[in-house]
């Protein structure tokens, strides 16, 4: 994992908000290029890397997808040099006041360089009565860069992106905290999987996909699964780790392995195969029960074209959709290894062996 950590930290320092994934995509593309045989971009911006299998053509293919887009904010207006914002993706306004951000100002004279700023909560007397001592609505928060109003008018345009600026920090017990670990942790797992596959022959073609626009409605994966039309798909995303605010059945211990989802979004035969493989290889894991929507790219992938048998894996993550999301590096590595082992285990007759209702 030591080699993956610098890659993950670099990736976490790139913005790549939903719909504007290029900064993240470039970093991933550079990392993947030596690991795949072909690389291209999908129509909605997803990154597609192909590792050809050793089986005879036409070969079946497996799509392994992790979304690369991150949540953040967008500028909706400027008042006296202060920026008004709207969320990109799901944001609880209560985690924003006092948060360091970077404003990607598109104004000509400033280029697209990042301006440091902070999410500002106005003082009580400048807020409506009901927000003076309670959470402040997002539309009443500002971003303050400290620059003078005339400079801001010159540099910042409506629609400019605002990203969390919290740098990734290594915490104790080989855990990492930062923004956009949802879902760059899974991109790192997918990258680890590709690295493992360098030394593992696989009969199937492998489409590695870093998908776009998951946080605004699983748009990228929907387009990619249609375009690539894989035989099966594995979607890897983050899931809730046990910790403050998440203690129930839906949360999994940090550092105790990835989860394999079970529910209508997941093809039962694939689920069974992966679970048995994890047990055989003694890779720590847990089952995640997802009674309906997994809330991942898997939900869109499964119903793409004539339907795609889908697997969903999860990496436990604390404090999802805050600037200090937290993940255990071991879980990333284990998820990557399990995917690689699963792919390597796929025989050319795998699909024929799947029988419903037996």
């Amino acid at each position: 994992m030591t080699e993956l950590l610098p890659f993950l930290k670099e990736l976490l320092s790139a913005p790549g908000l939903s719909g504007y994934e290029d900064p993240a995509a470039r970093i991933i593309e550079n990392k993947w290029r030596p690991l795949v045989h072909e690389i291209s971009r999908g129509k909605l911006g997803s990154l597609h890397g192909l590792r050809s299998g050793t089986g005879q053509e036409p070969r079946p293919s497996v799509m392994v997808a992790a979304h690369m887009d991150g949540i953040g904010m967008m500028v909706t207006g400027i008042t006296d040099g202060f920026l008004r914002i709207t969320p990109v993706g799901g944001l609880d306004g209560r985690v924003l006041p006092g948060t360091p951000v970077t404003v990607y100002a598109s104004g000509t004279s400033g280029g697209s360089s990042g301006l440091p700023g902070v999410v500002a909560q106005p003082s009580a007397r400048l807020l409506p009565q009901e927000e003076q001592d309670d959470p402040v609505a997002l539309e009443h928060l500002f971003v303050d860069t400290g620059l003078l109003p005339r400079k801001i008018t010159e540099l910042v345009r409506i629609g400019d992106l605002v990203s969390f600026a919290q740098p990734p920090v290594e915490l104790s017990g080989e855990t990492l905290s930062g923004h956009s670990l949802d879902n760059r942790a899974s991109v790192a797992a997918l990258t680890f999987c590709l690295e493992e596959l360098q030394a593992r022959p696989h009969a199937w073609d492998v489409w590695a996909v870093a998908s776009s626009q998951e946080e605004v409605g699983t748009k990228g994966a929907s387009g990619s699964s249609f375009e690539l039309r894989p035989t099966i798909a594995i979607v890897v995303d983050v899931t809730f780790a046990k910790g403050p605010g998440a203690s129930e059945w839906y949360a999994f211990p940090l550092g105790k392995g990835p989860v394999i989802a079970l529910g209508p979004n997941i093809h039962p035969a694939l689920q069974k195969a992966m679970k048995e493989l994890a047990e055989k290889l003694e890779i720590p894991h847990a089952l995640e029960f997802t009674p309906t929507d997994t809330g991942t790219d898997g939900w869109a992938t499964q119903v793409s074209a004539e339907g795609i048998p889908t697997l969903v894996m999860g990496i436990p993550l604390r404090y999802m959709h805050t600037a200090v999301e937290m993940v255990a590096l071991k879980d990333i590595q284990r998820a990557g290894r399990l995917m690689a082992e699963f792919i390597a285990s796929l025989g050319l007759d795998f699909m024929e062996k799947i029988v419903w209702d037996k």
Partner: protein
Amino acid sequence: MMPTIGNAQIKLLEKLCNASAVSGDEGEVRSLVVEQIKGHVDEVKVDALGNVLATRKGTGEKRLRVMLSAHMDEVGFMLVADEGEGLFRFETIGGMDLRQLPGKAVLVGREHLPGVIGARPIHLTTREERRQKIPLEALRIDIGPGNDKIKPGARAVFATRFQRSGPAILSKALDDRLGVATLVELLKQPPAGIDLLAAFTVQEEIGLRGAQVAAYAFNPDLGIAVDATPALDLPDWDGEENVSYNTRLGAGPAIYIADGATYSDPRLVRWLAGTGDALKIPYQFRQPGGGGTDAGAIHKARAGVPSISVSTPHRYSHTAISVARLEDWKNTFALLHAALARLTPEILAGERA
């Protein structure tokens, strides 16, 4: 040449801001201060509470003994219970808005070990829940599992690091490292005609406690608290004029007339404003209102001490990142230096009204 704030002083401010010094645990800033002022003062001591008390004598007859005070402590956290797996309950120290805590990185203990204050994922919250503040009981400082060096009792501060951007400084703890840096510089480039009694105080944020004993010890003729005050100069939500801005960035040092703890001595108000007018140094009057500085303790010391406060304005006080203007800090230093240089004992013989 007029002494001023330059790159060396900004560098020192950066070091001071990045140090951890929660009220009652000011050691890091204290060490920096002592190291900085060594060789520039006639006497220096650390008193019973941890204040650094330094004296630099002036020249000439009938010198006023002027106490200047800047507090070393900042708001922060204390870890109070170890719940295992790297999770700690914590309490806040100093006036903090709970709405400013979720989603922040912190540094814990003397080792500056990184940690985070997370929040429940939005996916698991209800609309009703999102209308309520996240209570302190729901928050933890999380340092990651398996580290047994950190124990309850350790202090923590926001992890944000000092940064400059255009005319602005973005940092934690500008309240009151701006004052500390100002005071260090005044000791290094002292106005000649006074005895400068510099108090780098502890425990300001929990009740001006350091200043209370420092003022007793110094027994000064007059006192000046050099602090940082909130600039609440954002737009009003409904487009009305903001009439409760307290101070504004860019308008220069804030001279206090009255706050929640002190009515400034009117002679000192006139002296500082008059200096600004005469030398064309920008200044503003802080809107009379609440709040308080070390002057609140100093003016009540012994038989009473004529006192005032001068603060550099900064936005988002007591949060992970405050925003100040370098120009305002330069003008704070310039105003104080110039005013002290023209200070004579006659000021205390003048009319109050």
